[in-house]
Each structure stands twice: as structure tokens, then as C-alpha cells.
């Protein structure tokens, strides 16, 4: 009986722990209020694709320094979920997705002011272990016997890009796994469980040498290049601030940070 009670406790504790962990997810909004008196405290909420995380966090700090009294909070996530959230009326001022398709979801729902701008692109690379021990050269070589390759599932943007590149190369890959997102692919290569994977230049760059990136010609094929559109969300209380964020991202500081991370800026 005692054991049964204890096991019930354990199950209960597990449930509570799960809830607590989930609750932690979005708790950083509203923190970091400015103490400066001259400028009214304002908070800009930016919903941005997960692949922008490090660049945007850096730019967020710089933007706050340049605009005293302003706090930038980020909601990073998958582009599709972010667009869905905006369509459902989530309180965001700026939407920055990692594909035109997801941005169009928000545009068609009338949730974006004017035309979104594409300010950066990202191209695919073949990620391999440092020094390329398996001698991978191009897309076709991923199908060699004994090579374990991993890509994104076609349903997600990086998978659609991979599919477009495959089509351009006339190759049909036989991956060991179709991951949910590009970081999943990167992890497989980084832990040595896959020999090669299709990821973006920015992902390779983010590993700081733990993974090597190989360029291949079909990476620039139609549909394989990832566009990064950005737009002001309709109904934003901070539309002017949202607009200056967009200008900032497209300005010299934003361009430098994006290029540093491996993006091609426009």
C-alpha cells in the first residue's frame, strides 16, 4: 500500500514538474523595465524564426541601447507556429519568419501592414564532420552505400528547400531520418550518428567548427534558397517602434550581424 501511495506521489510529482517546466516557457516578457524617466517605457514584441535567435538577441541589446526606455522581447519559434499565432491574434508588433510561405499566411489573413520586405537569404550546405572523413563531394554522393544522411521532413521549410535542391540535381536522397527542424539535422551530424545532412550556412557557422559545411551548386536552385521576410503586425500598439526595428535590422548594424552569422543580406 505504501509503495502504491509513493508511486502515485511520483506520478503526481512528474505531472507538476511538467507543468512547471512548461510554464517557464514564456516568462521573460515584461522584465527589464527601464528606470530612465525621460523616455516612456515601451515594450516591443518581436516574433521571430528560431534561426534568427542569436542575431536578434544581439541586435535587441543594441537596439535597446540606441533607444533608451525601450525593451525588446522576443518570441522565437517555428515560422509556421509564429504565423499561426499572429493570425490567431497573439500580441506581437513584428513578425519575422524564415519563409515567404509562412509570411503569406499572415499577409492573407490581413495581419501585416503593407508589404513585408525580404531583407536576408540563407542557403543550404552539406554538413559533414570536420575534414570530411567520408569524402562527400555533392548531393549524389550522399546516396553512396554506407553513408548515413539526414534531412528535414519535406513538410518543414528546410525540408522543402532540400527537396528543391534534390530536384535540381536530379537526385532522390534516401535519408535515415527526416527531422522536424534543421537543428535536429545538425545534431545528428555533430554527434556522429549521421555522416552528412542538409542544413543552412548559418547553422554550420553556429557550430564554430564542430561541423564543416560543403557548398553545392543546386543550393541556389529555385525554391532552395530561404528568404527572410519581416513585417509590422496589424493592430500593433507600437507600429512606429516596430518600423524602426525593421530599419535597424536592415541598417549597418543589422547587416553586419546577419552577415557575421552567415546570412546573405539584401
Amino acid at each position, binding site marked *: *500500500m505504501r*509503495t*502504491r501511495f509513493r*508511486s502515485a506521489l*511520483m*506520478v503526481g*510529482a*512528474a505531472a507538476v*514538474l*511538467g507543468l512547471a*517546466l512548461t510554464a517557464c516557457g514564456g516568462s521573460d516578457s515584461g522584465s527589464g523595465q527601464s528606470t530612465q524617466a525621460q523616455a516612456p517605457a515601451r515594450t516591443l514584441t518581436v516574433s521571430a524564426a528560431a534561426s534568427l535567435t542569436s542575431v536578434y538577441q544581439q541586435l535587441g541589446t543594441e537596439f535597446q541601447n540606441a533607444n533608451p526606455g525601450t525593451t525588446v522581447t522576443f518570441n522565437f519559434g*517555428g515560422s*509556421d*507556429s509564429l504565423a*499561426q499565432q499572429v493570425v490567431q491574434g497573439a500580441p506581437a508588433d513584428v513578425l519575422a519568419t524564415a519563409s515567404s510561405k509562412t509570411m503569406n499566411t499572415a499577409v492573407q489573413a490581413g495581419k501585416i501592414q503593407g508589404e513585408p520586405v525580404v531583407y536576408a537569404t540563407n542557403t543550404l550546405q552539406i554538413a559533414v564532420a570536420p575534414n570530411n572523413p567520408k569524402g562527400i563531394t555533392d548531393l549524389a554522393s550522399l546516396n553512396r552505400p554506407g553513408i*548515413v544522411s*539526414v534531412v528535414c*521532413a519535406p*513538410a*518543414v521549410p528546410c525540408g522543402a528547400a532540400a527537396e528543391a535542391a534534390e530536384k535540381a540535381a536530379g537526385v532522390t536522397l534516401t*535519408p*535515415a*531520418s*527526416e*527531422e*522536424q527542424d534543421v537543428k*535536429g539535422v545538425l545534431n*545528428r551530424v555533430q*554527434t*556522429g*550518428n549521421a555522416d552528412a545532412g542538409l542544413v543552412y550556412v548559418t547553422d554550420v557557422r553556429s557550430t564554430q567548427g564542430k561541423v564543416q559545411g560543403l557548398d553545392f551548386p543546386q543550393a541556389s536552385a529555385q525554391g532552395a534558397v530561404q528568404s527572410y521576410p519581416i513585417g509590422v503586425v496589424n493592430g500593433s500598439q507600437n507600429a512606429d517602434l516596430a518600423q524602426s526595428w525593421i530599419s535597424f535590422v536592415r541598417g549597418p548594424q543589422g547587416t553586419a550581424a546577419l552577415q557575421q552569422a552567415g546570412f546573405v543580406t539584401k
Partner: protein
Amino acid sequence: MTSVPRLLWAPAALAWLLVAIPVAGLVVRVDWPNFLGLVTTPSALAALRLSLETGLATMVLCLVLGGPLAVVLARSSLPGLPFVRSVVLLPLVLPPVVGGLTLLFLFGRTGPLGSFLDREFGITIPFSTTAVVLAQTFVAMPFLVVSLEGALRTAGERYEAVAATLGASPATTLWRVTVPVVLPGLMSGSVLAFARALGEFGATITFAGSLEGTTRTLPLFIYLESESDLDGAVAMSLVLVVVAILVIVVSRTRDLR
């Protein structure tokens, strides 16, 4: 029947609603006119089939390995049993992703066991259906062990002692006395393990990957669908809810008997 203090009614109702309302919301959100089409796409059927197969395999593995473990925990007097028990219960509190990572570090191609298997036998575990079953067993095992150990302790050792005095060997006692006595606990434990395996996500996607027909079980399929076709994801979620409810009903009726 003792009366329930009035104070408990409100939180009790809230607790129930917290679970019931989201599930009801799912039913409302389902695209009913296209429901049948959504749940019978080849990809959806492949996922359902893989989930049922790996769930059954997991249940068998839990019975074969977890059953004996529960007997040892309930009946033996080895020193350090509390420690053994805590380790077995660990997957209950651990996030499944952590479980998946630990499995990956052990069985992965560069892991100690994984590299050995690869070198000596040419076996690679990640990205295989075996990996799915391993991940599911990791998270589902405690459910069987806990239920069965509880049943064994509640049943007590009287019948077994009598059987022994009548000359039955320990093995005979186990099969002819212990197992029949704890059969309801064994059944509900197995069903719970199966149910947990069916819902397994984190450990599977981390360790086994996601490929249709090989490693993409129903929860992985739903997560992937939610990125592109929300209606398909919702429809399959409902299928999973129905299966889960069936499983709970089956295990509860066994308990009541």
C-alpha cells in the same frame, strides 16, 4: 460512504475541467467532413500501424524484463533495493528528451555500446525501429514495475508460504500461485506500459529519428503534421485520444473486478 468536505468540490471540479475542456476543444476543432480522409492517408496509417506494433513490442519487453524486476523488488531482501527502485522510477520524472539523449550517447554510433555493436556485428541502432522500441521501453517500464510491485505487496506472501510448505518449488510457486494472484495488476501494468509507449515522443524523436514506416510513430507524425497540415494533426490527435481512452477503460475495468 463518508461525505466529502465541501471545501474540496471546487478544486476537484477545476482539476477535472483542466483535463476535460482541452480534450473537448479538440473534438470541436476536428474537421469532421474530411475526418475519414485525414486519418486514412498512407502516412497516417503507416504511423498508426508503427505505433501499435512498437507499442505491443514494448509491452512484451516490459513484461519479460520488468516483470522479473518487480518480483525481485517486492520479494527479495537484497541490500540496496531502495536505490534499485529509485533508478527504475527515474524515467517517470525525467523529461523523455533526456532519456533519448542518454540512449543516444550509449547506443549512438559514437557511443560506447553503439560503436562496439557497429564494429563487431555491423548493427546500428539509431534510426531503426529497434531504437523506437528501446526508447519506449525506457519510459514505459516503470509503469509496469510500479503496478506489479504494488500488486505483489498487496497480495502478500501467505499463499506462497503455504505452497512452499506443501512442497512446491520456488518456480512452481511463482507460476501456480503468485502469477494468478497478481494477474489483474500484471494486466493493468501491461496496459499502462502500452499506453505510455503509444504516447511516447521525446525519447523517440531524440534517439530514433523520424522516418515514415520506420521510426515515425503517431506522436511524431502529429507533431510533424502540426507544422504543415493542422487539420491532419488534429484528426490524428483525436484518434490517439480515443485509443488512450479505450486503454484506460480496459485497465480500469480490470482493476474494479
